């Protein structure tokens, strides 16, 4: 098991390195650079050249990449090109906001998804199952910005004015101080994730409920609730873990859209802003962070799957 984790971690590092190459290449392909965005409309060839030199943008692409990656390896993420603050300082406050949003969304959507899936499987083809099925399919088809804007229109601006439509926060004050402002962004993320979890949970529970050992449990005369929650669900969790991990990783990307809709000051909003101003050190740092989250979550899901699947567990030992 330890060997497996170490191997996967090493592979993860290779993945991150490749990601950094792709991101760097992609950012180079964008027209315009940070010097352009800083100087704006009044840029002149001379002032551009001077600023490029000052920011190190006049060096070759390879040198720029090498300087950046060697900085990262020694724990120095560099400084923002547009406001010269250290990247770690720019990110730290934002990271707290994004992680809090994600954790809150995960804490609600995972149990909710598992419950809805299992309950639908148990009452297969009932009205409840049908309703859940249609609702989850419908919601899964909607992009987050549509859900987000709809929720804003309904609950914040046009129909009711119960909740704030955007986040207005102060730097240095944690997101937990604004519970009302969190409701809509969290709701959008929950709506984005629950359908997938619920559907996969339903499918695997249905399959398990038809298997021999469940039949055996029923024949023993166990109550159906106990059959479901003690015998079927634990065995149906393995695939659900995989999907949940993927969904959480997806949340890390999904927050970009949600944060932009709600002006929620997390890394997603910062990413949009940094791409717009061609602030490459910040773009790179955020992209790496999101990629790292993907790697770690996938690894955790695999470990969890192994732990709940006796066959896989024993094969590794």
């Amino acid at each position, binding site marked *: 098991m330890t060997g497996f984790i170490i191997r996967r971690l090493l592979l993860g590092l290779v993945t991150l390195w490749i990601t950094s190459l792709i991101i760097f290449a992609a950012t180079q392909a*964008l*027209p*315009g*650079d940070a010097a*352009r*965005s*800083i*100087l*704006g*409309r*009044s*840029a*002149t060839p*001379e*002032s551009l050249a*001077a600023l490029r030199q000052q920011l190190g943008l006049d060096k070759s692409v390879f040198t720029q990449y090498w300087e950046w990656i060697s900085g990262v390896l020694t724990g120095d993420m560099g400084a*923002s090109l*547009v*406001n*010269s*603050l250290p990247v770690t300082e*720019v990110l730290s406050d934002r990271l707290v906001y994004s992680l809090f949003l994600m954790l809150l969304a995960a804490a609600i959507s995972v149990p909710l998804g598992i419950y809805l899936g299992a309950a639908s499987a148990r009452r297969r083809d009932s009205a409840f199952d049908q309703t859940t099925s249609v609702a989850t399919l419908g919601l899964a088809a909607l992009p987050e910005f549509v859900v987000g*804007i709809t929720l*804003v229109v309904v609950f*914040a*601006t*046009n129909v009711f*004015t119960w*909740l*704030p*439509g*955007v986040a*207005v926060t*102060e*730097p240095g004050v944690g997101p937990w101080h604004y519970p009302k402002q969190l409701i809509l962004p969290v709701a959008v993320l929950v709506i984005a994730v629950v359908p997938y979890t619920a559907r996969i949970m339903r499918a695997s529970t249905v399959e398990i409920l038809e298997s021999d050992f469940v039949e055996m449990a029923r024949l023993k005369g166990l109550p159906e609730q106990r059959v479901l929650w003690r015998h079927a669900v634990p065995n149906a969790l393995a695939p659900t873990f995989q999907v949940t991990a993927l969904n959480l990783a997806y949340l890390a990307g999904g927050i970009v859209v949600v944060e*932009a*809709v*709600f*002006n929620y*000051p997390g890394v997603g*909003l*910062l990413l*949009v*802003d*940094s791409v*717009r*101003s*061609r*602030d490459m050190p*910040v773009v790179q740092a955020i992209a790496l962070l999101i990629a790292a989250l993907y790697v770690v979550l996938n690894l955790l899901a695999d470990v969890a799957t192994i732990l709940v699947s006796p066959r896989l567990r024993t094969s590794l030992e």
Partner: protein
Amino acid sequence: MTTADEALSREIERGMTRQDILRRAAALGIVVAGGTFGPLTEAAFASTKIKRGGTFRQAVFGGAGDFIDGQHIVAKSDIVRNVVGFEGLAYFDEKGVIKLSLAEELKAEKANQYLIRVRDGIEFHNGKTLTIDDVIYSIKRTKNPKLKLFGNAAFGAIDLKRIKKLDKRTCRLFLSRNDVTLKEAFAQYYQGVVPVGYAPNSFIKGPLKHIGTGPFKVKSFTPGRESVHEKNENYWRSGQPYFDQVRIINFPSDAAKVNALLAGQIEAMSDVPFAQVPVVKGRSNLRILVSPTGAWTPLCMRVDVAPFNDVRVRRAFRLLINRPQVVQQGLSGAGRIGNDIYSPFDPAYAGDEFPQRAYDPEQARSLLKQAGQEGLTVELASTAWDTGMNEGATIFAQNAKAGGVNVNLRILDGTAFNDQYLKWPFSADYWGTRNYLLQAASGVLKTAPFNETHWDQYSGYNRFESLYRQALGTVEEKKRAQIIKEMQRMEYNDGGLIIWGFKNLTDGYSAKVSGYKVDRGTLNLNKYGNGFRTIYFV
């Protein structure tokens, strides 16, 4: 505005009635003719209770590249953070008339000689008293070729070596050439006066950064998120400002700003998207401020590259846009049509004396045929730097089809557009309100920093520039207007700008706030309530 007026308006704030005020005025020795007081006093009567204090929240569209500088701006967010903390020698009032601010005297002694005297006893945010040395330093910083500040070009005539300090508060400027526009240049909002030693090498950071004389001083600034400004207790205009604090908060889009306004999370926002104006109007707790300005978003044809180097193509293109349609559809009616001449508020404006150009695809077709450019395909670049750019470009692309011109519209993100800015053969741009000569110095002259059409490559350019020089040295206004009209005629006939109209600024604010006036100037929301000092909670 007199001091007595300000004193009386303060009495009203304390709860005095008109009778009380009449008695008070008599006691102060103020003669009240026909019961009419000064404008401030009347305004105070009108809104009877001005509430002092409170935190005002202004939404802006900005990004991580935001900065605060008294003499430079790039984005609209930088403008708001400039006017809240900095002031120049003079400013334009709502009607576009130049009024003195930090200066007690600012006058052209000759067309090439100016006298400046600053008011006594004005303090910077750090407690230092304003002297003429600060003004001289500010002029030098603006003219620093390495910094390339926004107002650099307009100070071109000032001879730095011959600035003569007369006393602690007075100096005389000698110009290397005649320039009657210098007073106007000093009144631009980005010509803030900064203290000696203020950030000499950068507009992003440096010593004394954020120190101005304005009504609010910087308390905190987080680029890309917000800035907090607290009341300047030593502000020199008595009674102002009214708020304790101003928060300038960034939003990623206009939609997010509107949502914040509708939900009561901010007090004011600039540029309400046209589709949202009826929604805001429908709320009893919100107001819309419409300001008919001289702002314009032209389409610019480079006169030095094919096919636009042929004047017949330029003339044809000016006939290929349905101007009323752009104003109606692109601006939702919030504007008025133009006639390819800028500076509509200039006393010498002649755009309405020349025949109004109208949509005429047939004539355009025949002009293009003469030029051998039938079935022409062009690329038109635009970006959402300002409302009206993409709208004008999009409608032009549709309109031009009828004239047999195929337009490939390229709408780009700001930085990508900027990458080829001033190099695009055909592109959109944006401008605020400025009088003709200053606008020419910014946008069409050879030395202009934003010469989009490369007008200096036009065959008659030498004559245009000599007219410009002549106008700059002509103190007599009527004579100057004649020269300016001649310049406008050249641009009307042969120029590369398609000026389809002028825009209104449409801003939204909370009914809890009062004091905004309709303003002809470039800046939104009555110059953001004149740096947030003339607006207040009621």
